């Protein structure tokens, strides 16, 4: 097929890259591939092209850029709360729309953001607000603001279906620092009453992000947390 230094054959390059992406569980649509090929020099080494393709694809909305099949998407009734439990093999590729730390009160998360806004986390300007106790080897330092997780994620498959998922045990890379639009591949997981339960062995993080979504998420975060906490903004 395609040799190491690029024979320049558009068809061969397209096929090679498509196969590579499909193997990564993000099979591109023909339209996307065509658009991609038009932006590259065909005699670039194929490995570099594959990497670039993956990087760019991970920055897109998979509902438009990837091909869908019954096997690679959620069953349409997956969110049915009547179903106590079901096992799903996958692999199913999803993108992250929202992430929440449900182990901490929203209000304490708002306070943490405000402290950062006030510049208290920049070096030299730190303000220490919680002073630990010296109590012995068994001292439990109850520091609410430090706890992280578990996290609840809002995921979307290539069909556009929204499903919630939750970490059963801590998964590396999952947290409120995740980029919105990041892609994950889920396999061999349980869905309980419409909620996906995840453990490290179920998740492969592909990465990526959708700039516009991520920016908006960050801008709105404080407001959203406040609403969830139940703060009624002043005025009328």
């Amino acid at each position, binding site marked *: 097929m395609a040799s190491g230094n690029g024979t320049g054959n558009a068809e061969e390059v397209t096929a090679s890259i498509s196969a590579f992406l499909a193997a990564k569980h993000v099979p591109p649509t023909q339209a996307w591939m065509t658009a991609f090929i038009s932006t590259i020099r065909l005699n670039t080494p194929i490995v570099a092209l594959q990497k670039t393709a993956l990087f760019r694809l991970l920055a897109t909305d998979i509902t438009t850029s990837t091909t869908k099949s019954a096997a690679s998407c959620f069953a349409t009734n997956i969110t049915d709360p009547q179903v*106590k439990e079901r096992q799903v093999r996958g692999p199913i590729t999803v993108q992250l729309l929202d992430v929440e730390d449900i*182990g*901490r*009160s929203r209000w304490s998360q708002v306070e943490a953001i405000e402290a950062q806004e006030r510049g208290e986390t920049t070096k030299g300007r730190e*303000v*220490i607000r919680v002073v630990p106790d010296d109590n012995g080897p068994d001292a439990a330092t109850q520091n609410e603001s430090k706890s992280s997780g578990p996290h*609840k994620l809002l995921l979307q498959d290539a069909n556009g279906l929204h499903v919630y998922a939750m970490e059963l045990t801590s998964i590396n890379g999952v947290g409120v620092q995740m980029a919105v639009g990041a892609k994950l591949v889920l396999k061999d997981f349980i869905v309980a009453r419409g909620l996906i*339960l995840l453990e490290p062995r179920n998740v492969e993080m592909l990465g990526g992000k959708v700039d516009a979504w991520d920016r908006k998420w960050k801008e709105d975060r404080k407001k959203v947390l406040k609403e969830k906490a*139940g703060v009624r903004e002043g005025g009328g």
Partner: protein
Amino acid sequence: MVTKVLCVAEKPSIAKAVANHLAGGQVQTRNVQGNPYVKNYEFSYNFPTWGQCSVTMTSVLGHLTSHEFDPQYKSWRSCDPSALFEARIDTIVEDDKKPVAENIKRQAAYNKVLYIWTDCDREGENIGTEIRSVATQGNQSFRQPGNTVRARFSNIERAHIINAARSPVQLDEAQSNAVSARIELDLRIGASFTRNLTMSLQPMLQQRSGEDRSQVISYGSCQFPTLGFVVERYIRVRNFVPETLWGIKVMHEKDRIKVNFNWARGHLFDRMAVIILFERCLTAKTARVTKVQTKPTSKWKPLPLTTVELQKCGSRFLRLDSQRVMQVAEQLYQKGWISYPRTETDQFDRGMDLRALVQKQTQGGPWTQFAQDLMNGGFSQPRSGRNNDKAHPPIHPVNFVVPASLSQEEQRVHEFVVRRFLACCSQDARGSKTEISILYGSEIFNTSGLVVLEQNYLDVYPYDKWTSSQDLPDFREGEVFEPTEARMNEGQTSPPGYLTEPELIALMDANGIGTDATMAEHIAKIKDRDYVQTRPRARQQRQQGEEEEYEPAEAAEPDAGAGRGRGRGRARARGGRGGGAGRGGGATTGVQEFIPTTLGVALVEGYENMGFETSLTKPFLRKEMELRMKAICEGRKTKAEVVHESIEQYRDVYIRTQQRLDSLRAVTGTLVGTPGQNGILVSGTE
């Protein structure tokens, strides 16, 4: 030829005590013209350095000189406040100190050696140099090194003083310079900002409150960050929004014991998630024991006592605010009962004979038996903390004194110091802790049991609590059972409390504002200036699992050691003023909390609104100043450098404040609202 030595202490009581220790009672006392408190004590002493000497010991009354701006700047209208950053500062002797200074000058002429006996801290070093400069006016030769020396001492106990007298050292110029820098900065920055703030806001405040009395808005570079902490907490409490949370509780009865298991996740803020997890537990039906571990555990004895710790404990346990605690401690020090109460050191020097100190406490007091037991083999070297200011040891009792001969307040503080010291010299309390974990569905639950095997230090230190929990039944790893009861519960987050004094002290300490010597003063200042008010904490804002706190005995009964149950089992009503059940008197229930006044809030909010660079209510500017002080002490910076750097920083803030004065006025105007409202923010009930 007998050498004549002039000794000068910081306070009359110290002069008297030292004179009597050195002279063995053979002292001639002479009055000082113009002041009834200061005396000159004359005696003979053989100093190793100079041989047989004729000694005159006298004292000053704290700082001998004070600093003022050149008279042309005295009136507020005489210049723009920012001129004070550069205005000339004069060193003067105030009228009430003139007789004291004259006495020193006169005596100086007759003496060959000047021996400084001020307290051994930075302020003392600075006072020492003031004394030297005044004495030099009466005797030029004191300027030469070797003719002025200094005593190094940490308490007023006889042997210690005699030892100190025989090994004089040099005055530490660096430390004195640090204090000079601080004095100059506080004066320049304090005055310029105070004038500016007052003149800018006063007309508007007066208009609003309709009062004739013109209010000065005083600024201090340490007061504002202290106020900042109080206001911040106040606003946090006011803005707090309670949120619902959910948890899972598992209880299993075995061997007729009801064991409560706690969910490893604690609680979650998503109801759906918890319901689903809970259902999976129920579906699993049985739980499996995954861990059974019994291991020895201990509750550490306390660290040696520092000033900050004394202030915190004073607030929590002794019902004395930090300023009062320090005043009482100072009295105890001057009388020779405890060591110097201003120290950051929380480790005892290995060479110190602690047993001898314990021995002294076997002579009486409610801790006699405990001290005796320590002497009979129970003694254990105290823990070492991480701090050592190299100037003084941790606060400890220096001599035995019959408690009844002290005033009520002195007794409380003294008792605390003694008990703390004896606790430091005992063993940690020992126990055995059993931890059990179970896996129920996908969820982990834990429980633990504690058996306290040896009280050890807790027997003399009732301020700490540690009690055995109920017995746990036997569980085996791998054991499977069906929990007796499993249910979901719902709760709510609750707001933090307003700042209490111990918390405020801890925050000031952690953020580097104020030194151990000054923290109490800053807190007192913001109360004085009506920026904050205090009130007793009415409701018990206790965190889950926290034990009840120690309460001092009310009556004259000195035997506080009897009955460990003293602190526990006292029914505290939730809501309303609980505590004090059955104890007479209208005593307040424990700690005081700080509430800012409207003016206090206005100032902080006003500055916050002006933005980050001008934030006088944040600790970092002051913290940097404190660090620069330290640099002077350690010889890394000169006084001139530090004064210059800090002035520039504050000048910058001053300019920005000027530019945004309107914003400050706006907030102050809004908050210090309608005529008649006097600045008190919280009235009565919540």
